[in-house]
């Protein structure tokens, strides 16, 4: 086999498109590759692949390239792409589905910073039922290896009473813990 992936007749050439459709309810088959999603995307100039290229990678059934892409980690879920897509593809939803798929397949996320923040955020939520910002920032900085990021703002935040020193624990936090523990990655759709 050459280095280029050889497409064989045994694999379903539409497998990825079908998978995305099943997981998100979004059919990228309608995409006309006009590029409007990318033109309006606020992060597309920082990512390896752009939103319209992500659509095309799905069409090309290229799971491997896609899972390793940084695009959906940068995606801010701002929905600009979705509301302007001329054929009504919910691109932002596909981006989120890709984030979930990377976690589900247990491959390394291309942008660990974002994935780490998500993880730390969920941990805080599990522990307290609400987000404890100080803990969140410290924990995240520690894990992403930028211990002093935003540190300059810390003292001002305290003095302005914007960040509490103690987390607020809600009564139902056990329930929150079990929700997060038991919740499935994807919602089952008919």
């Amino acid at each position, binding site marked *: 086999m050459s280095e280029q992936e050889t497409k064989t007749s045994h694999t379903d050439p539409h497998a990825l498109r079908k998978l995305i459709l099943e997981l998100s309810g979004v059919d990228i088959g309608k995409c006309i590759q006009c590029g409007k999603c990318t033109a309006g995307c606020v992060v597309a100039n920082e990512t390896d692949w752009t939103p*319209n290229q992500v659509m095309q990678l799905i069409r090309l059934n290229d799971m491997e390239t896609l899972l390793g892409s940084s695009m959906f980690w940068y995606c801010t879920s701002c929905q600009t792409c979705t509301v302007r897509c001329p054929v009504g593809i919910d691109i932002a939803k596909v981006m989120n589905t890709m984030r979930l798929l990377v976690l589900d397949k247990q491959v390394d996320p291309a942008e660990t910073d974002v994935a780490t923040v998500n993880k730390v955020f969920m941990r805080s939520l599990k522990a307290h039922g609400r987000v404890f910002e100080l803990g969140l920032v410290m924990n995240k900085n520690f894990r992403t290896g930028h211990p002093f990021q935003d540190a300059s703002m810390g003292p001002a935040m305290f003095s302005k009473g914007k960040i509490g020193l103690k987390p607020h624990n809600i009564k139902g936090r056990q329930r929150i813990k079990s929700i997060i523990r038991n919740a499935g990655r994807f919602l089952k759709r008919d």
Partner: protein
Amino acid sequence: MTESSQDPNITLYTYSEVEEVKGYVGNFEVTIRKKARSVDLDTCTGCGDCIQKCPKRVTSEFDMGLGRRKAVYIPYGQAVPNVPVIDKDTCLFYTKGKCRMCEEACGPQAIRLGQEDELITEKVGAIVVATGFDQWDWTKYGEYGGGEIENVITGLHMERMLESTGPTAGHVVRPSDGKEAETVVFIQCAGSRDPERGVSYCSRVCCMYTAKHALMLKEHQPNSQAYVFYIDVRAPGKNYEEFYQKAQRDHGAIYVRGRPSKLFERGDKVVVRGVDTLTGKTLEIEADLVVLATALVPSKGSMELAKKLNIPHDEYGFFSEVHPKLQPVDSVTKGIFLTGACQFPRDIPDTVAMSGAAAAGVCAVFSQDNLTIEPRIAEVDEDRCSSCFNCVDVCPFGAIEIATRGDRKVAHVQKSLCAGCGNCASACRVRAIDVDGFRDHQIYAQIRGAFEWGERP
């Protein structure tokens, strides 16, 4: 136009609209509303003195607001006939009851203030519909400024500006300050290929006219630079691809593949936020002028006209042909032909070719003493007819009349109008109507035949 106005066999009704159409192929009776021009066609010499004197200035529709006209005006230089018309919505006499300056100015006394519309009827044997197109209302695109950014215009504005006798004498300028535009961005598919908010089809002519605009811009203003944002360049036609290549190669138009997402003003520039999908790079271009290639849609009022003519149309209002390949200029109603952009967006060569075909279709009708029609035609069993006239309501071609038989009223099919669609047959509760060739017993025989196939010798 001038030629046809001088042909003895052609009667031209300008500033007129069809009110009602009755009858059928060979025997149409058309009621025409001749709108009050407020100027007498026969007396007017076209000297233009009235226009000179008229104190009321308004924006010119023909120049898309880029220029001005008077309340009494001739829409454009080559207009036929060369006789002015008074715009009742802005004329001081019609709106305020005073002025009459034009009347005073007119030597031959051709002004007819207070003139009323006139209804006339004509008997004709065939009708050719050529009502053309309008531009899609692009101001629905909030992300492109929704019509609020002055230096965002459409291809039609560009046409007017490039015209040497037009409002800017051939200069491409920014409407905001009248300065010559240097960087001009063209955006294709503004509304086309957008089923969510515009139209789903490709408007067919925009790729080529944009290439033309880009090319002419460079010729008129050598210091200018054109950028063309496109999704796909569609140039199928004789010498079309070569023309588009020429615009790129020889006239330096830079083609960027991708539909822009947003237009906004920065200083006196319009920023185009776009992408080049070939490189995957997003980019912003600061333009003096942005020209949108807006989608072509059927002209306003085409749906109403379709009703008057009893011809079907598609979801957008484009009139439907009988068969896209075999009968592209025939409407479903016999004797009514279609041509040009009223049937679907098309360019001038295609429109001219189609018009020739439509004219030939008319000649074919007129050249025969008797008309041959399809045998698939509905027939009423008058004894059975219960006079409910459900069929009259469902017939899309208005082919069913109510006839009197003694003291009874019964449905009667006008054969030359019937298209054999069978709507009436399924609507008739007493089974009094059937379509020849598709009678119940014939259909049953076919079904039976199909199942007996194997047993036959």
